[in-house]
């Protein structure tokens, strides 16, 4: 496996009669794109808006954010298992429209702990500063579902539409010469290769069974993860469409964009290239629904890290809400017991801002903890100059927002490693 990313920088979006990259301006034929997405009868209509970096604009609630990418000919499929057959991702060349994203809106917030505005795309002001998404151009996809299409059917349609739009845009540059290319140095659990360097693995949860996956909810190669055991993935499989986010993310969120640009995998790659460590591979795991399920998953994940990857060290992340901390901690504890050193990244669960409420586990060997903040960061925000939402009611709600919490801004808090907001003890 040897993925090459061919970057085509985008610095402006423009409505046009055809979709093509003119210099660094992406011309988009939205009628053509709308026609493509409306092939799915779940939609009554779809509207598009362009948003520029730092623009006085708020859009939401965000369903997903995707980087436009398309595979070159004779490479692996685009988003295998969802848009194509579930063959191994990460092969060959992927064309990337860098500096932009396709952002799909929800018709209403998914509910749960984030309040009625859900997570928003905030493009300017102090709340936007902490998010990588405010630096991008966005093609905002605003769906209107056909009558009777709600729940999982609507979610599936929005998921597929976002990915299709992303591939469609990048397809326009598939025969252009890229501005820049990057080929990842091989990662291999096999040969020692790099004597003296610690062998480091990544263990990432991709789903939490706090809720049952919808039957056709694509997460891993189009599969909804039900019945799945932890599985070895090459890092390029994460970066190249093998994994997308679940419909619900909670506590910090996760977006497909940050699987494609996975902050932990790219950081491990960077250090692998720099000769600081030996990146030996990754394990995708899930958080269990009960103790039996949890033990089974944690032991299987730890065994893969120990026996298949032969790692000296592992970094672990969780997905979803509070309970997945237990799976994260138990997996790390098993690794530590096997002599594999770990660091773990957890969500901010301390609502009373006390250290005693900050962790959902207490294993003394888990003493390397990255703690994402978020629960007490709020900004007073002026009315947004431009509001983009799927319905007038939600638009009104977003326009009226005077205070935004860190948990409500996509990218400010994040479970994939992108956040720069941490909690400090005082």
């Amino acid at each position, binding site marked *: 496996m040897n993925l090459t990313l061919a970057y085509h920088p985008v610095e402006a979006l423009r409505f046009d009669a055809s979709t093509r990259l003119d210099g660094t301006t992406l011309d988009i034929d939205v009628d053509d794109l709308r026609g493509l997405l409306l092939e799915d009868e779940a939609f009554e209509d779809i509207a598009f808006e362009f948003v520029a970096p730092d623009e006085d604009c708020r859009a939401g609630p965000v369903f997903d954010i995707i980087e436009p990418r398309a595979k070159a000919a004779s490479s692996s499929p685009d988003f295998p298992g969802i848009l194509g057959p579930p063959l191994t991702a990460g092969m060959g060349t992927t064309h990337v429209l860098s500096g932009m994203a396709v952002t799909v809106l929800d018709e209403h917030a998914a509910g*749960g*702990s984030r309040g009625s505005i859900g997570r928003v795309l905030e493009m300017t002001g102090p709340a936007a500063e*902490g998010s990588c998404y405010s630096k991008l151009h966005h093609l905002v996809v605003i769906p209107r579902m056909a009558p009777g299409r709600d729940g999982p059917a609507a979610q599936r349609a929005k998921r597929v539409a976002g990915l299709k739009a992303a591939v469609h845009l990048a397809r326009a540059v598939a025969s252009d010469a890229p501005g820049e290319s990057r080929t990842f140095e091989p990662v291999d659990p096999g040969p020692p290769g790099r004597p003296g360097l*610690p062998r*480091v693995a990544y263990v990432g949860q991709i789903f939490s069974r706090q809720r*049952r996956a919808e039957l056709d909810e694509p997460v891993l190669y189009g599969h909804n993860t039900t019945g799945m055991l932890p599985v070895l993935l090459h890092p390029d499989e994460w970066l190249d469409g093998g994994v997308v986010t679940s419909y619900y993310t909670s506590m910090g969120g996760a977006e497909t964009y940050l699987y494609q640009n996975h*902050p*932990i995998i*790219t*950081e*491990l790659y960077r250090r692998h290239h720099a000769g*600081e*460590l030996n990146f030996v591979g990754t394990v995708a795991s899930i958080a269990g*629904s009960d103790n039996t399920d949890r033990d089974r998953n944690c032991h299987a994940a730890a065994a893969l890290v120990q026996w298949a990857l032969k790692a*000296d*060290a*592992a*970094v672990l*992340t969780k997905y979803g809400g*509070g309970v997945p901390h237990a799976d994260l901690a138990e997996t790390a504890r098993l690794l530590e017991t096997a002599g594999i050193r*770990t*660091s773990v*990244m*957890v969500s*901010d669960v*301390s*609502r*009373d*801002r*006390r*250290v*005693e*409420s*900050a*962790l959902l586990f*207490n*294993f*003394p060997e888990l*003493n*390397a*903890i*990255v*703690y994402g*903040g*978020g*629960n*007490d*960061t709020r900004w007073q925000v002026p009315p947004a100059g431009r509001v983009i939402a799927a319905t007038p009611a939600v638009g009104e709600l977003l326009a009226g927002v005077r205070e935004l919490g*860190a948990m409500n801004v996509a990218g400010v808090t994040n479970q*994939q*490693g*992108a*956040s*720069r*907001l*941490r*909690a*400090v*003890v*005082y």
Partner: protein
Amino acid sequence: MRIVHYLNQFFGGIGGEEQAGSPLQEVEGAVGPGRLLEQTFGEGAAVVKTLVCGDNHAVEHQEELTAAVLEHVRGAEADLFVAGPCFDAGRYGMAAGALCSAVQTELGIPAVTAMHEENPGVDLHREGLYIVNSGKNAARMKEVVGRMAGLARKLAAGEAVGLPEEEGYLTRGLIRDRFVGKSSAERLVDMVLAKVQEQPFDTEMPVTSFQPVAKPRGVDDISKAKVMLITDGGLVPKGNPDNIEGMAATRWGAYDISGDDDLAGEDYEISHGGYDPRFVQADPDRLVPLDALRQLEKEGAVGEIHGEFLSTSGLSNPLSNTRRLGREMAEKVKREGVDAVILTST
């Protein structure tokens, strides 16, 4: 800036342990460490009053002392209250902590003290106060007073106070958010590399440790016991009459089951946002197993089922909250003469 300073009998110059019983005395101007404090602050700050009290008197008459000190501080129109430094003097530390807390909360005037980390005053008051880390040794007086003055200046001016390692105070056990240069991914990899290479690293959250809860004595004869069902799975009667929050619940409820042999889904709802409630909604007995327990009651295997079950929602709830909920429930359990409780969670 007008400062009122509290000292014990020793630092206040009255005498040693033999004077530990002396009552509160009021002295105009600065005494002992107060002079150093004044010097450190420089122009524009004065210790207008020094309050001196013996250590034994202070701990034995704490309420009375607190009221008197509050009165003095109010009367002196103070901008700042300073107590100590107390180093490792335990009674002094406890008094200084209590007085600083009272001045801060009752009068809204910033207060600073200093103690050795193991001073019993620290555990009692660390969360609410900025307590400068004084070490044990009074030879470090100058340095300690310097830190107290630096911190006090910021508090009096309403400026942001830095972290313990920056300002020299003892960790309060609280957390706050801060934006940092490195992403969590970079920090995560930094940390594991340091750990695997046996280099020093700083965890962002200390590992918590809790006192183990002692296992209670078993029920002598369960066939004669009164049994209660308690859940944190958020099962509540339709309409959620006590408005138990689905997350970080501050309330619990007691719900009548005296006439029921099992629980019907249509009578209940689930106020809990952290698990898939569909199975419980379909049959609440799967969370609060009244059906099985009634069977055991009929067979004589258990004595009696209490006529109510207790319920709250155990999602994302801070310990400060759950401690209170637990205590209130335990009081109810005792009041009802219950012998055994079955706790079910999700």
